[in-house]
Each structure stands twice: as C-alpha cells, then as structure tokens.
C-alpha cells in the first residue's frame, strides 16, 4: 500500500463539562494514505467531527482536551508541536472545510479577502498577488464569475457558491490533507452532486488526501477509497469501500448498511434498525461500547474492549466475533 500521510494512534479526546467528562474519543487509530480519499461514517454524536478537529488541534479548551495519543504528520507528532508551528500547518498543509458554508465565512469580510488572507499568511504574498491567486482558486472550483464573487460578502452568495469558495480557500495553499466535515449536508441535492463532482476532480488534479466525514453511506460509496465506521468514540470497522458493502462485519456496520433500503441487503435478516439509543458518553458502557445494543453480544463484550481483527485484505474489525482472524 501507499505511504502513510498521517497516522493517528490511541487518540483520546475528552470534554470536561459541568455534568461530567464526555469521553468523546476512546482511543482512535487511523492511518491516512497519500492521495487517498478516506471516509468516516457514523451516527450523530459518534465523534467524527471531534476526530477531525483533534487532527488540526481545534478542540477548544475549555471544555475539550486531547488527553492521550499521537497524530504523526510529516514525521512530527502534531500534538506535541508548539502552537505557532501548528498554526503554520493549519490551512497550509492540512486544511478543512465545514458543514455550514453560510456560517463558516466571516460575514463582515469579502470572500476574496478571506481567501487572500490565508494565502498571504502562508505564502507570504502581497495583498494584490494573493487576491489574484484567490480569484484563480475560485475559477478553479468552477465559479462562473470569480472576480465578482471575490468582491462579494458571504450573505450575497448561495450556499453552493459559498461551499465552492470554501473549497477554494481550503485548497489555496495546496494542502496535503483536506478534511471535509459533511461538506454537503447543508446543501440541496443538485448542488450536493456538483460539489461532490468537484471534490472528486480535485483528487486527480491536486493529489491531496481527503478525509471525508459524512453519515451518508451513499456518498462514501461514490467518493471514497476506504472507509472507517465510527461508533461512540471508536472506529469499529475499517475497510476498502468495496468490501464494506460486500462484507460488513461489525454488527453495528451491518445494522448501518441494512438500514439503507436501496442497498443490496443480502447480509441482512430483515430491514433492520439498530435497537436502543446512542450511549451517554459521560458514562459509556464498559467493554465494547456497542454491546448493550448488539444482538450478538457475549459476556466478555461487557468486560473487555475488543482489539482489532483482520477479516480480509485491508479489512479490520473491532469485535470479538472475529477474534479468530489475524490481529491487525
């Protein structure tokens, strides 16, 4: 397999709130390879965004804090970098686009200003040059009148236009990793398709790796090379996109895939929903966090945390059902 661009090991992020410690990430392990698009799926609150924000260290203290783990990028542990050095990586080597394009831009500055700002910051360019680059970037994302858009304020543009601009801004410093946290959730379907097309094209033109966060398995299928399935602060299954649909292994993944009526459901007993509720992360279930909802739960599931087990080429599951398989 290709080179590892970024490697997350044992990442634990907690939120110290008044009601208790929210154990949002419970030891995440994830490698992102150069040039790949890796998806992250899971229900609301499972920790996808926290994972993304932890990577660029935008978990705000208080209340959030990365307590354990390492994130290796370019041979450096990002978690140990001084803030100044981290700021040189943000928006430059690793950049991020967010879910709500309407709110993600500062309402009081023009789009062009905001894009030029990041160019000026990381590439030490003069304002005029940076502005020119910004227009280039806007053009690159397929915006029809880039000069006009650059001079517009966020409230003057549509959501799709803003998300394109956001992508332009994120790509303006040619990042090695682009983190996209549900980039299309707030957009209507036709626009969503355009944005996804744009992102698909990006991979080929820029060669950047993409971490695509979504809870839409369809998008994963369309966009990603690999996918990680998250549940309550853990990645429970990690596989190539092909094998995850063919052979979902973790009971949670199975439940997730079977919940989609349009997909091939030969693994499913019935069109199922997963019983029970998302666990409270202040008092998470011991052992495997999924066990209270799992129809195949065993005694030990409530006592020990399962390790990683290999079920196929590049396909790993964190579930005792597969203990026979190779350890990762």
């Amino acid at each position, binding site marked *: 397999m290709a080179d590892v661009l970024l490697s997350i090991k044992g990442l634990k992020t907690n939120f110290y709130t008044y009601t208790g410690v929210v154990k949002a990430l419970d030891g995440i392990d994830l490698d992102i390879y150069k040039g790949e698009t890796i998806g992250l799926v899971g229900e609301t609150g499972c920790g996808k965004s926290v994972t993304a924000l932890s990577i660029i260290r*935008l978990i705000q203290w208080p209340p959030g804090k990365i307590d354990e783990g390492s994130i290796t990028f370019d041979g450096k542990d990002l978690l140990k970098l001084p803030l100044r050095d981290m*700021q040189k990586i943000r928006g430059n080597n690793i950049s*991020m686009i967010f879910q709500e394009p309407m709110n993600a*831009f500062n*309402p009081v500055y023009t789009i062009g200003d905001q894009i030029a*700002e990041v160019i000026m910051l990381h590439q030490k360019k003069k304002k005029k040059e940076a502005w020119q680059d910004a227009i280039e970037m806007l053009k690159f994302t397929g915006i029809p009148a880039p000069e006009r858009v650059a001079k517009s304020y966020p409230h003057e543009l549509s959501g799709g236009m803003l998300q394109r601009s956001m992508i332009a801004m994120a790509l303006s410093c040619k990042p090695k990793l682009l983190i996209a946290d549900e980039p299309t959730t707030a957009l209507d379907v036709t626009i969503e398709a355009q944005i996804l097309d744009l992102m698909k094209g990006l991979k080929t033109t820029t060669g950047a790796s993409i971490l695509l966060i979504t809870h839409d398995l369809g998008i994963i299928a369309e966009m990603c090379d690999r996918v990680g399935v998250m549940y309550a602060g853990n990645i429970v299954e990690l596989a190539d996109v092909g094998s995850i649909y063919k052979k979902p292994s973790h009971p949670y993944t199975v439940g997730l895939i079977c919940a989609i009526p349009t997909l091939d459901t030969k693994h499913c007993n019935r069109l199922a929903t997963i019983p029970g509720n998302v666990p409270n992360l202040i008092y998470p279930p011991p052992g495997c966090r999924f066990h209270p909802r799992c129809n195949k739960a065993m005694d030990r599931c409530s006592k020990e945390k399962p390790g990683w087990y290999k079920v196929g080429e590049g396909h790993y599951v964190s579930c005792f059902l597969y203990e026979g398989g190779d350890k990762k």
Partner: protein
Amino acid sequence: MKLRDYIIRRILLLIPVLIGISFITFFLSHMIGDPAAAWLGEKTIGQEEAVKAIRAAHHLDDPLPIQYFYYLNDLAHFDLGRTGRNEGGRPVIEALKDYFPATLELAILGMGFAIIIGIPLGILSAVFKDKVPDHIVRVLALVGVSMPIFWLGLILKYWFSFKFDIFPLDGRLPYTVLAPPKVTGMYTFDALLAGQFDTFFVALRHAILPSFCLGLITLAILTRMMRSSMLETLTQDFIRTARAKGLSERKVILKHALRNALTPTTTVAGIAFGGLLSGAVMTETIFAWPGIGRFSVKAIGSTDFASIMGFALLIVLFYVLSNLLVDILYVYLDPRVKYG
C-alpha cells in the same frame, strides 16, 4: 441609497421629532405652575403688579395652544426665547452656546474613556473567560455600574488631586490660563485647533477626572456588553474557520471576532452618549464644570420654561444625531446592514 441621501433623509426626519418633543415638553412644563410666580421668587411675594407685567410681556395670559404657536414660530426662526431670572434673561440660545460645549467635551472624553478602556477590558475578559483577568474585570465592571457618581467624584478628587497632586481639583482651566479662541467651545479641541498645545494639555488635565467620572458607568456597561458579545461571537463557526486557516489567536480575535462583536456594543454606546449629555449634572456639580446639566437643573428649579425646552430639544437633537452616527457606523461594521 447613497450615504448623503440617507443622512439628509434622517435629518429631515428630525424635524417632526423635534416638533413632537417641543409639544410634549411645552405642555408638560406649563402644567407645573405659574411661570410668572416662578420668576418672582420669595422676595417679591404679593407683587401683583409685577406678576401682571410679566404675564403680559410673555403672552402668558393667552390660551396654551396659542402660546405654543408663538413658541413654534420663534423656534422656526431659531429663537428659543429668553432664559428666566437665574440666567439674567439672556437668550436661551446664548446660554446653550455657553454651557453645552463644556458638557459635550466631557461626554466625548468620557465616551473616549469608556471605549478605549471598556472595549479592551471586555475583550480581555471574554478571552480569559472564567480566569483571573475575567474575574478582576467583572468585579471592576460591577463596581463601575453601581458606584454613586457623587461619591466617586469626591473620592477621585481626594486621591488624585488633594492627596497626590496629579490632576487639578476642578474647573475647566486655571484662572491664569486664557481660554483658547472659541470655535467649538470645547477647550481641548479649540486649543488644538489654535495650535496652543500648552493650553491643550492643561485643559485635558482638567477634563480627565470629570470625564472619567462621567464615563465610568458607560465604561462598565461597554465592558460587560463587549464581553458578552465577544463570547457570543467566539462560538461562531467562522471563528473556527479562521483558526483552521492557521491565523494566530490575536488575528482571530482582533480581526475576525472584534468587528462582529462591535456591532451590539456600538448600539449601546450610541444610546449611552445621549445619557452622558443629559446626565452630567452630578459630575458638573462636583467638578465645578460649567455645563448644560447644571443649567438644566437650575432651569427646572426656577420653572424656567424656555430654558427647559431649549435643553430638552438640544439633548434630543444630539441623541438622534448620535444614533444616526451609530447607524452609519453600522454600515461600515457590518456589510449586511443597508441604509434605509
């Protein structure tokens, strides 16, 4: 709409506002009592002749609406009438010209203090939320809003002037220094205009304690306002975007958060400015500052209607103007806001 058209429209709108205010103050003030009796005071009790003469001279025997008509007619000619005996009966306009600049100067400097100190303190407090600087600032702000001005003024004078001779006790200038040539009537500004820097410093030195005293409550209010709107702004998505771009925390706060957080603070400041102008009596009394507040209290005390009304109209005028200024500032601060 063009800025100029907007300003013209707003100023034209001022006319009905002023007429409305004149109507209300006119009828309210004429309900208090007999203005002629008020003119006479204790010494001339029972001087029916004098009362009659004064009533006749001032149309006081006409029905109120007719009197109001006389007033409006004069007003249209920029004549606000004559002051009462307290001011020697000189034209109200002249008295306003004498006293208003002094108060305006205090209010501007007081607002300056409030902005220059209050806004950074508010930012500091928000940025260090729930940490020591925040606690200190919040206690100071609480003390600031609840401090009685009278007491504060005397304390300031006692410590900064009497004990440690840093600032003068009171007044606008030492009697040994000539006032700068009158342009605005505000000594600090006039001194600068005339290039008299010595006078400027002396005048500023005189103005610092009273304007601080006057501005303190506003300072505290702006601090609180700035803190809460800053906190609010800091939770916004675009702040996260700014950080994700790799901007330093200083840039995030001073460039991205500040401008957004300033909008509500500006509104409050605009309203507070009118309050500074009309609420300066205490400060003016303690610091022997010859301002409009003392004039208005004297006018009210002697039921001097023309002066009361002149004062009310002027304050309303500046109140509206400062709000207009705020509205114009808004457009600069927030491109989503349009004139209209």
